[in-house]
Structure formats: C-alpha cells, structure tokens
C-alpha cells in the first residue's frame, strides 16, 4: 500500500478541513475527486509532510509518516502545487536547483520532454512563460528529482483543452517510462477516470 490514512483530522482557523478521513491509496495512479472545500489539496500536503494532521495516522509504504524525515521524504514524494511557483531565473536553473537538492544528475532535455515541454524551453525566463508552460515547468522540476511518487494538485486547472491534453499525454507517457506512482487531485471526474487506475471520492 502506497499510503494508508486512518481517521485523519486537521483543523485550520477553528474549523475542521479534514475530519476522521480514512483511505487506502495503492501503488499506481490514484485520482482524488470531490467538491471544492473537501480538503483535497490539504490531503496532498499531508502526504509529503508540508503539513501534519492534528489527529489520526498516515503510513507511507508501511512506515508511519511522522517518523519520515521531512526533507528526504519531500525529495522522494514530490508535490506539484496547483499554482505554479517557480524560482526567479530560467527553466533550466529551476530544474538544476531541484536536481541538486536531490543529489541527482540533471538531464535537462529528457526531463523537459517528459513534462511535455520542448528542450528549447531550458533557457527561457520563467517570468515570461504562460501559466500552462509554467505548470509543465513545475512538473519538469519535480521530475528532475527523480521522485518515486508524484503528488499533483489540479495539474490542468486554468488550462485550455490543448494544453490539458499535452499534460495528460505527458503523464501517461511518464507512467509507461518510469516506475512512478501518481496521486492526483482533480475537480474533473472525466479527467480522474482518464488518468487514475482508481478514483477516490472525498466527501463534502
């Protein structure tokens, strides 16, 4: 089992964002759907310890998540947030930063291709990319760390159909090429069925 959540609860500002939530997320690709405000993004952040639950237990491949060192965990379980947030500089400098943090050699061209970006993007200034291009650069940056698990928060929100199809194709290709598990949050049930081996529904 990739992740196992038991009775997980988390409060923010005096209200429960997650309450007594239990789920089993197997290896492979899992899509999480649910209405907005159901705590989907929060759930992803719990899985690589960008936040810790107030109640309950989470296990990652059988280990209690709380016993995992957060920095090492985050290099292994990479999260791509919903809104692109790259560091100032070029696409390549972002990829290099991530690769160096993980102690991995950087294959810039191959990584960009995997994320559905042309290698010519390496030298581009991130400030001059469209949101869709930034989102793919974020995916490429996560891949530069050669993670075992990818957590994707609405990877195609705010994109047109063409850009969405490119990201979906890139993700499908990724799963064929690499042994990587994916947990993906989507507001779109169609996308969840296309990308997930299983679909996990969160209650409102």
């Amino acid at each position, binding site marked *: 089992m990739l992740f196992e959540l038991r009775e997980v609860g988390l409060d923010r500002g005096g209200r429960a964002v997650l309450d007594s939530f239990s789920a089993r997320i197997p290896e492979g690709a899992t899509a999480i759907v649910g209405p907005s405000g159901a705590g989907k993004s929060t759930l992803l952040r719990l899985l690589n310890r960008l936040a810790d639950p107030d109640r309950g237990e989470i296990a990652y491949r059988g280990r209690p998540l709380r016993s995992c060192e957060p920095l090492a965990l985050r290099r292994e379980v990479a999260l791509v*947030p919903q809104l692109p947030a790259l560091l100032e500089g070029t696409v390549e400098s972002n990829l290099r930063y991530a690769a160096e943090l993980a102690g991995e050699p950087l294959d810039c061209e191959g990584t960009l291709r995997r994320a559905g970006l042309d290698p010519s993007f390496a030298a581009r200034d991130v400030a001059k990319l469209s949101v869709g291009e930034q989102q793919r650069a974020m995916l490429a940056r996560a891949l530069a760390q050669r993670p075992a698990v990818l957590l994707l928060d609405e990877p195609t929100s705010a994109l047109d159909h063409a850009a969405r199809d490119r990201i979906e194709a890139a993700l499908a290709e990724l799963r064929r090429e690499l042994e990587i598990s994916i947990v993906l949050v989507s507001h779109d049930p169609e996308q969840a069925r296309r990308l997930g081996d299983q679909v996990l529904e969160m209650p409102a």
Partner: protein
Amino acid sequence: MSAGVQVELWQVAASLVLVALAAAISLWQRADLERDIVVATARSIVQLTLVGYAIKLIFDADTIWLVLALLAAMVLFGAVTARHRAAAVPGSFGPLLIALGLAGAGTLGLVVALGIFDPTPRYLVPVGGMVIGNAMTASAVALNRLGDEMADARARIEATLALGATPREAAAPTVRRALRSGMIALVDSTKTTGLIFFPGTMVGMLLAGAGPTDAVRLQLILLYALLGSVAISALVATLLAYRNFFTPAAQLREPR
C-alpha cells in the same frame, strides 16, 4: 576639553517662534497637525531635558557600569519600539533584542578596541545612542519587509520546501531582500552625505566651535560605525526571525 559654546534659555525660548510658524502653517492650510506639533514640542523639551540630566549624572559619576546600564536600557526600549513595526513577524522581540545588543556591543567594542575612542562615558553614551538608534530603525525596517515578503512569497516558499529544501534555503531570497531594505537607507544617505544634507554630528561640532577638519573626520568615523551597526542588526534580526515562520518539521506556519 571645555565646552565651546554657551546656550542660554532665552535662545531656546526664541527658537519656539519657528514652532509657532509651523503650527500656523498647519492651521492655515488645515493640515490638522497643530496638535501633534504642540505635543511633539512638549515631548522634545521634557525628554531631552531628562536625558540631559541623566547624561550629566553619568558623566559626573564617571563609571562604566552606569554607561552599560543606560546602553542596555536603550537596547531594551529599541527592541520594544521596533517590535511594533514588525507585527507580521511571529516572536520578533527576541531577535530584535539580540540584534540591537550585538550591533551596539559589536560596534562600540570595535571602535574602542581599534583605539578610535576611549572607553569613557563622554564617548560611549552619545556614540552608543546613535549606533543603537540606527540599528533599531534598520532592524525594524528589515523585519517589516520580512513580514510582507513572507506573506507575498508564501506559495513560492512552500513550493520550494516541497522540493526538500531547508527553510533557510526556501526563505533565502526573502531574507536577502529584507536585509537589503534594512540597510539601503543608510547606504544611500552615506552616498549623498555633505551634498544634499549635512549630518548632525558635523553640524553640532561646527556650531560648538570645532575646526572643519575635525568635524569631518569625526563625522566619517560615526558614519562608518553606523554602517557597521546597521548591517549587524539587520542581519542578526532577519536571520533569527525568519525561523519563526517555520515549524521544526520544516513546514510553513499558518498565518495568524
């Protein structure tokens, strides 16, 4: 060294004409500052008179312990004052206290160790006051900026933490900008000193009858001492305070 000038009370009283002028302008143009001008004038008289007596007491006693107690009080009040401007930074008091203490001790320690000034009340009190005052402004500006930048850059900092960066690595660009903004005002005013404004020490020395050469040399020493203290305080305050935005598990704390 004997006092170069005698200032009589009637001279001070006469200068109040200029305060009246300022109040009149405010009243005439409805700037709504006349009350503040009166309060500011009254406070300046009371505060400076009290400080004058305190300094006289310390000079007469001529003991280093009283000087150190006065400097410690300045550091404490400076940290309390600066904390209000750093309201967005959690737990800013400790970092500010340490920053001001280190800036004061480091700068004064160096100018004494280098033999620039004797460790006597006559030098330590006024120089210490300037050094700690400027350090307070610099660290307050730096932490104010740090609070704003940490709020603005939240998404980027968390995205960088998500790559397995340490809080220090994730906050580095933010800390750098905060440090810069704490130091830049003094660096800029040092660049234009003498061209656009005459710094206070030089004015004071010239008025007190010192030669221009001595006035300029002393002013330069003080400017450089201030640069050092401003750099120390902005650096120490930002490097200690940014940690308070993170949990021990390298997570961003929820904003209050």
